[in-house]
């Protein structure tokens, strides 16, 4: 059976691969959260209201460590700033039947992957398709967190310890292929890592809260390389 383009069902189906990917990432997040001291319900609530992997991972230590609200807000702002660009880009692709009210809902789940799939459609995307496309990934994200948080409470310590690297391994899997493709990205990444290590292992600097360290290192590295090695225009329009 041929699934009709731009329908709710097509959106659901296009969202399935994202959903499966999210199950494992959010599973790792669930484990990480309960290991950090959050309850199962708290972990799931974070996933259901934030829907962003890196942002949530950075938020957990700030929450459990009793960090400042400003630190949390600033961290989320920097880590999630890329979504602003994606939302700008997505706004250019919306069919006229996507009303203002729909934009408020769709933007809530405008993740990297949802954005990537929505963008890969030729022509404009309609509202029913978008609702389908955000539904399956959202369910995967929430239920994966629940499973991970529960598993974190029942699995033996040595297994939990091993699963602790899962989310970082996924980050490696996102960064390395892109760094392999573009040498400027590789250099930016190495520079950011060097800065991060300086903050971790230098006396005095090591007392700066983790959230701020992420902001400082990421903004400094990105701004420096955006100035020195800007990305060629035609490519960057696809981001």
């Amino acid at each position, binding site marked *: 059976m041929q699934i009709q383009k731009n329908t709710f069902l097509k959106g659901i189906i296009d969202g399935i691969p994202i959903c*499966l990917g999210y199950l494992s990432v959010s599973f790792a997040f669930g484990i990480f959260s309960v290991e950090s001291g959050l309850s199962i319900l*708290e972990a799931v609530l974070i996933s259901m209201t*934030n829907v*962003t992997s890196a*942002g*949530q991972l950075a938020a957990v230590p700030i*929450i459990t460590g*009793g960090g400042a*609200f400003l630190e*949390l*807000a600033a961290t*989320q702002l*920097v*880590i*999630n700033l*890329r*979504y*602003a*660009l994606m*939302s700008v*880009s*997505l*706004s250019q692709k919306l069919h006229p039947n996507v009303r203002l009210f729909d*934009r408020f809902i*769709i*933007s*809530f789940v405008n993740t990297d992957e949802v954005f990537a799939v929505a963008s890969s459609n030729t022509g404009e995307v309609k509202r029913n398709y978008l609702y389908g496309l955000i539904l399956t990934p959202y369910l995967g994200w929430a239920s994966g967190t629940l499973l991970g948080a529960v598993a974190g409470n029942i699995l033996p310590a*040595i*297994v939990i*310890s*091993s*699963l*602790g*690297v899962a*989310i*970082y*391994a996924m*980050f*490696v*899997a*996102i*960064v*390395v*292929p892109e*760094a*392999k493709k573009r040498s400027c*990205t590789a250099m*930016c*990444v190495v520079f*950011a890592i060097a800065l991060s290590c300086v903050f971790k292992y230098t006396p005095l600097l090591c007392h700066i809260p983790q959230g701020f360290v*992420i902001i400082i*290192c990421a903004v400094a*590295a*990105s701004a420096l390389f*955006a*100035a020195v090695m800007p*990305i060629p225009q035609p490519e*960057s*329009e696809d*981001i």
Partner: protein
Amino acid sequence: MTPNFFLYLLTAAGVTYLIRMLPLVLVKKKIQNRFLLSFLYYIPYAVLSVMTIPAIFYATEHTLTAVAGFAVALLLAYRQKSLVTVAAFSCAAVLICELLL
């Protein structure tokens, strides 16, 4: 669950939502500024790298096992394996090393 948790939740979710919602609702034109576009391109990779290193080396019982997991992740990621594959083998490497230690 403390009242504080809900304030944290509201802060994180509120900021994240505003970042996504405001441009989709307000912006109609495309960004042209090359510096800004490049900055936004670099940000996710810089953020993920900073969050991973050195934190990954403290994510397991022993630093040595984390190094093994990291090495496996690097190798498989370099060979363009999927996120799930990279994560699974990285975890397996750590588990095996933890059992050996």
